[in-house]
């Protein structure tokens, strides 16, 4: 549900973000019939998805490798925009930043292929975890008994790692934005969007959507049982946001996650997931120290910079694995 009524005070809601969220989509007639983006999604949703049902993983990855030049070409403008940002945020040269932008794009493509593989019933057996660090931090947080919020960034291996943790008895409720990442640039893309949403629903087994009216209640229920919930701290789909500087740029930070932490007093553990299904690593960092505060605003002021700093550190250490550089 969105904040829709003037009776409801939401001082931290960003008016621009809210108006964008409420904006009507562009009318169909104003869209081109088909774009390269639409064609890529069409290939992904049908032929590649069908092939993913029976092809061995290595051959699916080979298809991904062959399509990489097309994906890089398609994203060339977004990459060009990302390079100065990466160079500044990661304190690196433009040349290295260009390499990071390309690698991030490739890794993101392999992530989408892994998501097709997730549809296979046998996917759990295909998972190859090479290393888990900091498991004691997770266990300590669980022992607190108030539930654990795992904060992650948009890293390529997050969903694969969550699937692996679930197979090992650590079921994690994940929170997704139902608005598909397929930007539907053309009429074909608009037609494909519902199919993409259906595919996502099949791939994510233990999840709740931000758009669900009882999203927070489901999260609360899981935490009250002492369970685990994962939230993407750099996610931008939300009705409550504050503008912060993140990786050197203004960033609308969704505050819902922090409000849940404030209200439920649960533990917060940063998690880092790197790699792909053929070999991935998981790292749990020590629990974040939460400073109690009497009000929502004071809580955000006291804790938000620390939460974001932990995530920024992860991204700067592993820039090739973060998917949002080329997103804008």
């Amino acid at each position, binding site marked *: *549900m969105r904040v829709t009524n003037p*009776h409801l*005070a939401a001082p931290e809601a960003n008016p621009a973000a809210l108006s964008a969220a409420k904006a009507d989509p562009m009318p169909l007639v104003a869209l081109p019939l088909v774009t390269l983006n639409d064609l890529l999604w069409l290939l992904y949703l049908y032929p590649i998805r069908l092939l993913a049902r029976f092809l061995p993983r290595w051959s699916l990855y080979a298809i991904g490798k062959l399509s990489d030049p097309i994906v890089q070409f398609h994203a060339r403008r977004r990459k060009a925009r990302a390079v100065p940002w990466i160079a500044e945020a990661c304190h690196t040269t433009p040349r290295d930043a260009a390499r990071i932008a390309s690698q991030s794009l490739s890794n993101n493509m392999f992530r989408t292929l892994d998501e097709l593989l997730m549809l296979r019933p046998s996917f759990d057996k295909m998972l190859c975890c090479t290393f888990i660090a900091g498991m004691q931090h997770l266990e300590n947080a669980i022992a607190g008994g108030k539930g654990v919020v795992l904060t992650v960034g948009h890293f390529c291996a997050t969903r694969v790692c969550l699937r692996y943790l679930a197979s090992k008895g650590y079921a994690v409720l994940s929170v997704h934005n139902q608005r598909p990442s397929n930007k539907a640039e053309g009429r074909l893309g608009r037609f494909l969007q519902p199919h993409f949403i259906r595919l996502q629903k099949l791939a994510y087994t233990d999840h709740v959507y931000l758009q669900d009216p009882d999203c927070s209640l489901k999260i609360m229920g899981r935490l009250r049982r002492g369970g685990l919930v994962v939230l993407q701290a750099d996610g931008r789909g939300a009705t409550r946001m504050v503008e912060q500087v993140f990786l050197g740029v203004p960033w609308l930070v969704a505050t819902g996650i922090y409000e849940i932490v404030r209200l439920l007093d649960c533990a917060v553990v940063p998690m880092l997931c790197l790699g792909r299904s053929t070999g991935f690593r998981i790292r749990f960092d020590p629990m974040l120290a939460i400073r109690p505060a009497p009000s929502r605003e004071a809580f955000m002021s006291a804790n938000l910079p620390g939460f974001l700093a932990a995530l920024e550190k992860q991204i700067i250490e592993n820039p090739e694995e973060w998917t949002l550089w080329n997103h804008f």
Partner: protein
Amino acid sequence: MDVVEPLLIDPGSGSPDTMGRIRRVFIESLHLNLREQDLRYEAKLDESVGLDSVAVLEFVTALEMEFGIQFEPEMLTIDLVRNMKELASYVDERVARRCPSREPA
């Protein structure tokens, strides 16, 4: 002069006192610019003011503090929270379970 709506309690709904407290908590916890009497007991709470999901959570945690109870995880559904009568009935039940001496004979 404000017209105060009469309390019409259905069988199975909570006590008038509980409903009044819930209404007050709802307005106070969400900082609504509403008078208590503007909020009808029959109305769906989320539809009355347009809540986002986090606001629902704020309301539930404020209720827990007000009544000194804890919602059971399986009862945390929007259908319960939006319906003031059902909510009051549930809260009364939880309070009674916490304080057996207050249970009706």
